[in-house]
């Protein structure tokens, strides 16, 4: 892969070495692997304050930050530019089928979809099979590590955070572009985040601003959904109603 510069390769190998050795294991018996809870909660509060300032904190009269059609278009562009990176990860995971699907999506949306402004592939029933280097690490057998909350981006885990860093390095679109295009790409990606935040506004507001403990809710939702995405279906997590001693 010619777009890897030497620094990139070194960074990737260092990150993987670090991860395989350093991911913390859960405390036995604990429901979540969250040894940094106090710090995570502080970051969560800062993220909440930022979200409230940008998106109104659940007040119904708040105007959207971006008009939804604009946000959606930026989201389409960002998703399309993220597709080559998905394909690389599909290949690294030795999953040829999603690699092919994502390649077809990229071709269709870059051409028929006018450089990714539109998403005709989804309308045609060719759905994105999104992935990331965090998933690649999972496929390679790296443990999840501790739950983390990082500024702005929010919930993640040690493994997923390392994956995000590696994704930034191995992203072919990033490797092939420089300023000013890279700034426009960054702006489109932010727009895509705004689009998602606005589209699911009610549900996200209710989790962030109506929960008794929004930190605990976010942690539960992030980890359960992430495990679902990674295809971890743990039978032990399945709730058996006849084994619930409190609901007799």
């Amino acid at each position, binding site marked *: 892969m010619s777009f890897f510069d030497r620094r990139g390769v070194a960074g990737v190998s260092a990150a993987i070495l670090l991860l395989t050795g350093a991911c913390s294991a859960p405390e036995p018996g604990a429901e979540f692997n969250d040894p940094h809870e106090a710090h995570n909660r502080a970051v969560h509060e800062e993220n909440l304050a930022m979200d409230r300032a940008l998106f109104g904190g659940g007040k119904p009269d708040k105007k959207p930050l971006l008009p939804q059609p604009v946000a959606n278009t930026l989201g389409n562009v960002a998703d399309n530019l993220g597709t080559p990176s998905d394909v690389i990860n599909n290949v690294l995971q030795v999953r040829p089928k999603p690699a092919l699907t994502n390649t077809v999506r990229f071709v269709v949306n870059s051409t028929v979809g006018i450089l990714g402004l539109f998403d005709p592939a*989804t309308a045609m029933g060719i759905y994105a099979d999104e992935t990331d280097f965090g998933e690649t690490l999972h496929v390679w057998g790296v443990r999840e590590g501790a739950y983390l909350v990082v500024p702005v981006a929010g919930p993640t885990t040690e493994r997923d955070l390392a994956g995000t860093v590696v994704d930034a390095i191995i992203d072919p679109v990033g490797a092939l572009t420089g300023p000013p295009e890279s700034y426009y790409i960054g702006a489109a990606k932010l727009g895509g985040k705004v689009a998602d935040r606005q589209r699911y506004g*009610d549900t996200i507001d209710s989790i962030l601003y109506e929960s008794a403990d929004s930190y605990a809710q976010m942690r539960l939702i992030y980890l359960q959904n992430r495990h679902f995405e990674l295809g971890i279906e743990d039978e032990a997590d*399945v709730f058996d109603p006849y084994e619930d001693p*409190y609901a007799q």
Partner: protein
Amino acid sequence: MPSDLTRRNLMIGLPASVALAALPHGAWALNTGQAKALVDKVVGEVNTVIASGKSESAMFKDFERIFVRYADVRFIAQSSLGPAGRSASKSDLNAYVKAFQGYISRKYGRRFREFIGGRIEVQEARPLKSFFEVRSVAHLRGQAPFRLDWHVFDKSGKHLFFNIIIEGVNMLAAERTEIGAMLDKRRGDIGALAADLQRAG
């Protein structure tokens, strides 16, 4: 299938109570087909409401009604409360369950709003542990379809769902976290919890 067994036992003249006692608990009156039929009914009603063209607030009311009718709200309430329910007085517990019913149906009825403009398609059902899992897929406009699982049992004697799992996110687990946190904030006072739940959701 448990129901076939029931029918056969009845046909050879065994008293129903003996036949039922011989079956594994929880499985006697429900089979895969019936579990799927329940979810078909729920989803059919949700889809009808979505397609009705009513105002959003009218739709919320309908969603609430569907939730109360087809979910085992009493079970969800007690399970969400956890061990604190054991030491509670009967009147506190009853007030809590009643308040929880309004809270949960408002909350999840409102979440169904995301399905407006889309449709849910019921797929297959399978036995899982002591109950049945019914898989469905939500198709929303301009989005990749996503998975929605329903867990169905007949613990109360009626076929009802007691858990919904949306792309891996489990309603019962979320409500245990929520009710647990609310109770902590009220220093374990279930009466105060019930009063506050009437306004929440």
